[in-house]
């Protein structure tokens, strides 16, 4: 389960960055991958659709949103949390 969340999130981010999934590492930041603010909002939409979850994220203040976007690993962990909360 955990692995498939990671794979799906990486696939979504890779598609947004126009990269191969193998080029997206867990330590990459969105900035490293060339994803701008519009790309971020689109990625979050794709994540919500893929996992049937609602991601708490306000583009005005990404830093203080409950959803951590500081790295790919952080995003994966946050999505895993939201998926687990939905299943609970």
């Amino acid at each position, binding site marked *: 389960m955990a692995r498939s969340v990671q794979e799906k999130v990486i696939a979504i981010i890779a598609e947004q960055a126009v990269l191969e999934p193998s080029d997206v590492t867990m330590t990459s930041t969105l900035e490293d991958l060339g994803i701008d603010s519009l790309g971020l909002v689109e990625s979050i939409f794709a994540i919500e659709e893929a996992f049937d979850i609602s991601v708490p994220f*306000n*583009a005005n203040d990404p830093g203080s949103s409950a959803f951590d976007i500081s790295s790919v690993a952080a995003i994966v962990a946050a999505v895993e949390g939201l998926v687990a909360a939905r299943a609970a």
Partner: protein
Amino acid sequence: MSPRGNRVVITGAGTINALAHDVAGTLEAFREGRCGITELDIRDKERLSIRIGGQVHNWDPEDRFNRQQIVLYDKFTQFTLLAAREAVAQSGLNFEGRLGYETGVILGTAGGGVNTWDENYRAVYEEGKNRVHPFVVPKLMNNAACSHVSMEFHLKGPSFTVATACASSNHAMGQAFHMVRSGMTKAMLTGGSESMLCFGGIKAWEGLRVMSKDACRPFSLNRNGMVQGEGAAVFVFEDYEHARARGAEILAEVVGFAMTSDAADIVMPSKHGAARAIAGALRDAGVNGEDVGYINAHGTGTAANDKTECAAVADVFGPHADRLMISSTKSMHGHLIGGTGAVELLACIMALRDGVIAPTIGYEEPDPECALDVVPNAARDAKVDVVLSNAFAFGGLNAVLALRRA
């Protein structure tokens, strides 16, 4: 004639918005720093994550229009007609004779009849109906409000609708100004209207994740996004000599207008595009930066707009940026999108005529990136001679008007 053409003055104003159904009530709310943003009262609100807005309350179209009119008037048209009636009544103009041929209508709206789209999509998609009312198209079209104003007041001159998102009204009023200044027309009805506070209208905005769930706090460090509003404002722009000859009361003079395009990004604002529009309006008006006492900001309450706008003002005005006042009345009436510049022009007129600067309410924490005098939370008495009204739209289209005390 001035070097650029005929002088242009404002001789009538009308509005309906979340603060009041007329100009007097709106200015009173500006003076009191009252907030018109409330919990939304719309269908299917429970499926929205954004549930506040600057909604017009206590609005019953049957109080103002007959049944035949209501089937043709989307809410954005209803709001426009109400505002136009107030503006024309104040101006005292009668357009039934020759003046009607020398007067047109230029209005701004971003979405036009959004409520009509929403209701009829619901009918065919959700309710599975295979038939809609025959007047759906003339009701929803973006120029419907403009055409109904021209019909109600017999205005037969140049008339059209401008759609440049959040700058629509300022672009419309700029065009109206140019027409009177050039001598193409003697007078114009101009301004703008918006009514997007319906399920589909708000759902679309939610997608961008730039909306606040609790309040519009322009320039405040803890701002967290924009809040949508609805309503309209309409003005009578008139040739100064024409107005003077008939002894009309002049509310303010329109002295300059400029528009620029960022040519950069579909949503992120550009300091350079905004600064070029502000500087262009000053040049067009033939005034120095030091003459400007007040700016009605675009001030949406988003992180990006407010810091970019303050940086643009600092660039254009230099040390004078710290002496002028700049406020965003969106904190009170919300962001009327294509109608916003029109409602905000009322704050400019109030500053010039009454010597009262409308505040930026909801201001809680200073932001070092918005370190200007934003007239926080309380209106202020101040005599100003020249004011600007900024509008910077999604798509990077900027429009700035300059007004002078009559």
